[in-house]
């Protein structure tokens, strides 16, 4: 259970799996971190946030978008992701946290945005799997 960076002509794709929706969300986020930095430092404080959306795929999209936003506004590389996902009424909610590694401590590059291109989020016998393309 975890993630793999996959070939994409111009961008970067992350394939991930996890035992739960929360685990697969966090695994995709770990892949996003790996796309930006080969070796994130063990420094930085954890921060938390929550995101709501109308569906599971939309929630995954908004969660990753929020991470990119937090990165730019906090000036940190989010790493070591944790997430739990639940359905609340007709809305999906992710409660998430990450360790914000100060940019000064890492050699990192930009990922511009999450995309819906070829996005896959599906239940499997072992849990959940996801495929997400990021714009570099």
């Amino acid at each position: 259970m975890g993630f793999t960076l996959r070939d994409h002509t111009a961008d970067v794709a992350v394939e991930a799996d996890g035992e739960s929706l929360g685990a697969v969300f966090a695994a995709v986020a770990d892949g996003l971190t790996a796309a930006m930095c080969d070796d994130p430092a063990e420094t930085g404080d954890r921060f938390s946030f929550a995101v709501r959306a109308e569906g599971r795929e939309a929630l995954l999209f908004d969660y990753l978008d929020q991470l990119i936003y937090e990165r730019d506004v906090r000036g940190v590389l989010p790493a070591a992701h944790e997430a739990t996902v639940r359905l609340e009424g007709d809305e999906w909610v992710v409660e998430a946290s990450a360790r914000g590694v100060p940019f000064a401590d890492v050699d990192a590059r930009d990922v511009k945005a999450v995309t819906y291109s070829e996005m896959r989020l599906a239940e499997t016998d072992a849990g959940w799997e996801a495929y997400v393309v990021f714009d570099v």
Partner: protein
Amino acid sequence: METREFGDIELRQVREHVWEIPREGEMNAPARVLASEALLDHIGDDKTLEQLRNATHLPGITKHAICMPDGHQGYGFPVGGVGATDATDGCLSPGAVGYDINCGVRMMTTNLTYEDLQGHEEELVDALFEAVPSGLGGGGVVTGDAETIEDILARGMRWAVDAGYATDDDLAHCEDEGFRDDARPEFVSQKAKDRGRNQIGSLGSGNHFLEVQRVTDIYREDVAESFGLEADQIVVLIHCGSRGLGHQTCTDYLRRIEKEHKDLLDDLPDKELAAAPAGSALAEEYYGAMCAAINFAWVNRQLIMHRTREVFADVFDRDWRDMEMRLLYDVAHNIAKKEVHEVGVDPEGRPVRDSDAVEREERELYVHRKGATRAFPAGRPELPPAYAEVGQPVIIPGSMGAGSYVLRGGDQSLDLTFGSTAHGAGRLMSRTKAKQEYWGETVQDELREQEKIYVKAQSGATVAEEAPGVYKDVDEVVRVSDELGIGDKVARTFPVCNIKG
């Protein structure tokens, strides 16, 4: 007539360098690929053709969806794609613009020669790397408060002139004079503005760079003279976009379209083609927000150019004006614009391809160029007075080990591509594979020792991902553009110093 097959897609050759995917099924128009046989082999190698065919499903797409010679797989709409949709009953698609709104290129000329620069390369590349923010979290030339951001979004390079970062001459040599009047900052989200605040005047990373180059070849003396280019001259090329502010704007509108125009989205084969119906409130708001992000990107490149002028002044110990550091042109290659084009129409007045048309009419269209450069020939009213007689400069960046090109808008571009041509070499190899094939430091050493190109980057991985071998042959891309008459070769440049994120 020759045909080529790639998976389930068959292309028929219309004439040399012009291939067509005929209209069938739910397609609203045929698609065309402008490529030589060699480039078509690359284009057919990934999902570019599938994405191009999907793009023909956009409502109101006019004539053809078109793939430029440097086209490659993107997300939703292919990179190197041009799609013109009817501005009255078609659609406006953030997905067909891309996340990096007004990603583009500018070139600044100087009166220095390569000989003047030799011996200063190391000092210059170090000083540029120090002065121009790049990479992730590198900050910007300016850190903007809320008022500054609003002003930049509303007024583009006019803000830069008032703030002392640009001259009137810079404005006169920028697409749209560096200012989109349709900008509506109130339709740019607070999230986007938050991301833009500390990135005003920054390169970012990926394929963005600043390069000092020398002019190696002149192909059209008269046009080169009008552009202020001559052999052996030093020029500076800057390639970047609207940074987090533009990326967030695209993301925001993609999600709003998903929520507010689900019916239209459900009819499209790819969610990333996200489009708002022309005339809808959302289309109007996106257009205003996109134009504001376009203004932001022009300021971004202007601030980097301003810093570059200061660095040259330090390194060469003279005022930048004495080195005649002038903006040749700044042109976007990720953009949608309302433009008027002549199109063929059928007896019911519907735009159709020329062979089916009974007459021709002028129509207002949203011309989406995603990884494609506007390439207007002489005579179009949008051209700045300086280039009204010769055609618009088009800047085609190559990889850091190959040349770049300056073209001018070709006579055939309005007929073939809604006034567009390629935007670069086009990627060939994935980033993950590039990092397996290349090692950043080795690439840097080889470029310096074999080509006398000085590269400095925040991340060795970026150098590996952007190694010259991961790109298509820019010479072949430009040859096709020139032979089709959509963008004519004017000059070629070769890198001397390159900085990237």
